[in-house]
């Protein structure tokens, strides 16, 4: 009797580079992890604040070194990708908002951007007293 076999499918390494949407997904996930890293950096502010003025100012100076500024710029870029891709996806799942009719995803996406910008401006006003 002749043996009959199936050709077994295996995922190729680097699969996420072969499609723009997969790549965006991976960037979004990395952005999530990096936002946690930035949380740790901010936590450092609290810890050094508790240790006294000298420690706090040393930490602030450390954050302003070229290497740390570069790291923060990279984190910011990834976090923006994370935020915008999530806004994009939220618009695609707005069926949760209404049982009978989902709003156009472009409208939801636009609304999310407006809220994001408004919240950012609000935070800037609270923290710095203005733009």
């Amino acid at each position, binding site marked *: 009797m002749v043996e009959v076999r*199936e050709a077994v499918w295996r995922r190729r390494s680097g699969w996420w580079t072969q499609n723009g949407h997969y790549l965006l*997904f991976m960037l979004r996930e990395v952005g999530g992890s990096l936002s946690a890293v930035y949380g740790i950096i901010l936590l450092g502010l609290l810890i050094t604040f508790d240790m006294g003025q000298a420690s706090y100012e040393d930490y602030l100076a450390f954050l302003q070194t070229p290497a740390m500024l570069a790291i923060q710029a990279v984190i910011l870029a990834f976090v923006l990708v994370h935020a915008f891709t999530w806004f994009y*996806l939220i618009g695609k*799942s707005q069926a*949760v908002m209404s049982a*009978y009719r989902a709003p156009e995803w472009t409208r939801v996406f636009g609304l999310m951007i407006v809220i994001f910008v408004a919240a950012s401006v609000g935070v800037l006003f609270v923290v710095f007293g203005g733009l």
Partner: protein
Amino acid sequence: MAAENQVVFRVRRYQPQGTKGPYYQDFRVPYRSDEVVLDGLNYIKDNLDPSLTFRWSCRMGICGSCGMDVNGKPRLTCGTFIRDVSPGGIVQVDPLTGFNSIKDLVADFDPFMEHFLYVKPWVIREKQRPLSEGEYTQFPEELAAYRQQSLCINCTLCYAACPVFQGDNHFVGPASLALALRYIRDTRDEGADERLDLLSTPHGIWECTFVGECSVVCPKEVDPAGAIQSLKVLATIRHMRKLLMPKFASR
């Protein structure tokens, strides 16, 4: 008749009784601008190699049989014009990603069929009404609530596009989950709790990481990604109700 162009079809071949693994074979195929990839495959079968094996049936995007990877993207070959996918003069055709191949372009859909039945894709009633009492009726807006998910033709393009299913074929997957939502939203159905119990598992809705590609490739705009997120919300609401208001846990 319009002048014919030429294109190379690079087709993945696999003979289950052969000794060698999958390989690619090139076929030179003439085509007109109104012909689709399925026409090209049928040309090969009729004129160049009758052993080439692939599924197809209706040729009009209804049966969902002719899904294949065309240039690396899951598509219905009956709805994909050759002129749109052959800018370099080559059209590469593979069986759908994520499934084993039985022969040539024929994918083994057994994993999908298991997931499909897992979500109980039928109207569940706690107590069946006798036929003599007539059919279950609905208002048009009640039909509209699940119409989008009911348009699914089970072509499995969404599975081929889903990197989660590709990494773990135990994942219930986009089309089956969209179908689950279709029945949960159906006012005739009383099986929401039963289905949400089945789906609130590691291989159910919570395995979806919302890549969203399933909705991109869906030829019927079913939006399985959106459906899965809706299921997550429903499951969460139900869980919180169970915790806070046990008497009102059901929808």
